[in-house]
């Protein structure tokens, strides 16, 4: 029963891993994936010394850290708020409504951003004009790129990511709430001393998982949001690998950059996991 799953994983997940050696070889069209001559770390050195290296690193880390912080905190806040709602049906409605955007495709999300943020006629542009914000070209600006990217990420996924926290909150022993009330705690104190501690194990696990993707800025969304005006801030490792590899055919060089990305991510995952194990006894393995 496991045979198809093992075959597909071996071929399509471990197959490309075998091809990683290309990062250390000179790609040779005639010899195929694994036939080129060994060149050692040549392509890594080329990347570290390239003029793009620092700007790629800065953009990638900046975008992913900002997304990580807001994308991680917002669902926790939302879950705590929804948990305060009295009445099952209202609670369910709020929850269902907030995670609807999760299922919209990235292409449509970026398309919506374009019509809503288009200068002078977009819905959001017009709305902001009420508040005196005028003349910003949100889609073609280096300063607006990251806020637009992060806020739309939060808008799309906050509700969905809060489900798991709500599940954890619904498992809190009701006696704890009773006891806190008898001790005279107000609602804020209950959130602080009952709700948040109940969420910590889930938070730790999800935090480790996000750390494992620290350099994994979402390729598709950034790629779709890119234009020549915002490129100085929006060019990240994954879009660069696509451009020089798939579009530019520099296979060995882009494999090396991709491998660098994967290894950093993996290191972050392992480190975050070790820290969590020490600090809170929660870990992935």
């Amino acid at each position, binding site marked *: *029963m*496991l045979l*198809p*799953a*093992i075959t*597909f*994983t071996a071929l*399509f*997940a*471990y*197959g*490309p*891993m*075998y*091809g*990683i050696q*290309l990062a250390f070889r000179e790609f040779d069209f005639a010899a195929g*994936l694994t036939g080129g001559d060994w060149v050692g770390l040549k392509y890594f050195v080329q990347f570290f010394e390239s003029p793009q290296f620092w700007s790629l690193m800065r953009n990638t880390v900046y975008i992913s850290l900002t997304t990580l912080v807001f994308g991680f905190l917002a669902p926790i806040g*939302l879950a705590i*708020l929804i948990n*305060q*709602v009295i009445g099952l049906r209202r609670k369910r409605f*709020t929850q*269902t409504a*907030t*995670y*609807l*955007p999760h*299922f*919209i*495709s*990235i*292409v449509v999300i*970026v*398309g919506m951003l*374009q*019509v809503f943020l288009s200068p002078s*006629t977009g*819905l959001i542009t*017009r709305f902001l004009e009420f508040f005196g914000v005028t003349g910003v070209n949100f889609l073609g600006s280096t300063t607006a790129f990251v806020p637009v990217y992060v806020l739309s990420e939060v*808008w799309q996924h906050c509700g969905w990511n809060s*489900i*798991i926290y709500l599940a*954890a909150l619904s498992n809190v022993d009701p006696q704890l709430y009773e006891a806190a009330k*008898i001790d005279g705690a*107000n609602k804020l104190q209950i959130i602080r001393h009952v709700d948040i501690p109940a969420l910590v194990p*889930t938070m730790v696990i999800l935090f480790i998982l996000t750390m*494992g993707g620290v350099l994994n800025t979402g390729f*598709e969304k950034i*790629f*779709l949001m890119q234009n020549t005006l915002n490129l100085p801030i929006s060019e990240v490792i994954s879009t660069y*690998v*696509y451009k020089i590899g*798939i579009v530019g055919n520099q*296979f060995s060089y882009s*494999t090396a950059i991709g491998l660098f*990305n*994967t290894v950093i991510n*993996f290191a972050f*995952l392992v480190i975050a996991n070790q820290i969590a194990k020490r600090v809170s006894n929660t870990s992935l393995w």
Partner: protein
Amino acid sequence: MLSTLARHRYRTPGDVAFSALVAITLALVVFVTLYPIYFVVIASMSSPQLVQSGAVWFLPQGISWFGYEQILSDQRIWTGYRNTLLYTVVGTAVNMLVTIPAAYALSRREFVARKPLMFFFAFTMFFNGGLIPTYLLYKEIGLLNNMWVFILPTALNVYNLIIARAFYENSIPEELHEAARLDGANDFQFFALVALPLSKAILSVIMLYYLVQHWNDFFTGLVFIRDYDKQPLQIVLRDILISNSAFAGGAGGAGGTGGGYGQQYADQIKYGVIVVSTLPVVILYPFLQKYFEKGVMIGSVKG
């Protein structure tokens, strides 16, 4: 007893204020979430001039079906729709056939290789060969520009495997397996005749996850497909929504002939395209949502 209960019911002014604040915040969150989607729907059927001048806020104004007429007569959208439907249906069928039996086998506690095999699968969640080796491998085995590239490489999603395995581990009682064995059923019979019928909930969850994944897949078409008549809906959408490519009727195009005039119609077409492409998922939504949540809950049970 009664008096303590009454005391617990009593809400301090602080609590009342707090509840009001929560209610207002959440109402705002729900509005911010739903309004953009609602606006797309009403803008798609309103007069483009009124949308652009800011007259449309809560109700459609000056009903105009121009956008939808353009969309219905555009061949690219229909080709994209047909391709995506094909990839979604075949892809999800393959997904289910690969994922569910594997999840069941990995849930059996007496299965000795299950620990190392779980590692074999889970490792791929955190480490991969990267884009270029993947691309070259597909090239060598003939998956480039081939419809099966939408179906075979994504046949197994490890996250879904873990959810399904957790379900089988926690929800199929061991006694059932014992009883079936005493009745002479082997593992395959038990899986097909007992475990599968008992797992309709998890089958729906996993199937829905896979359906949405295929429906929204943009990356595969971008990187691995060259012929336009094989491209899925998401690529066609990209061309219309983001690259502003012109429509059959001449409306649209970034530097459109009529300047502002062309842009108005291009926007209406965009609103319409968003509605048409997202409709299948949204129609299913009310009846899917209870399953989607279930999936997250099962997944959160650490196995």
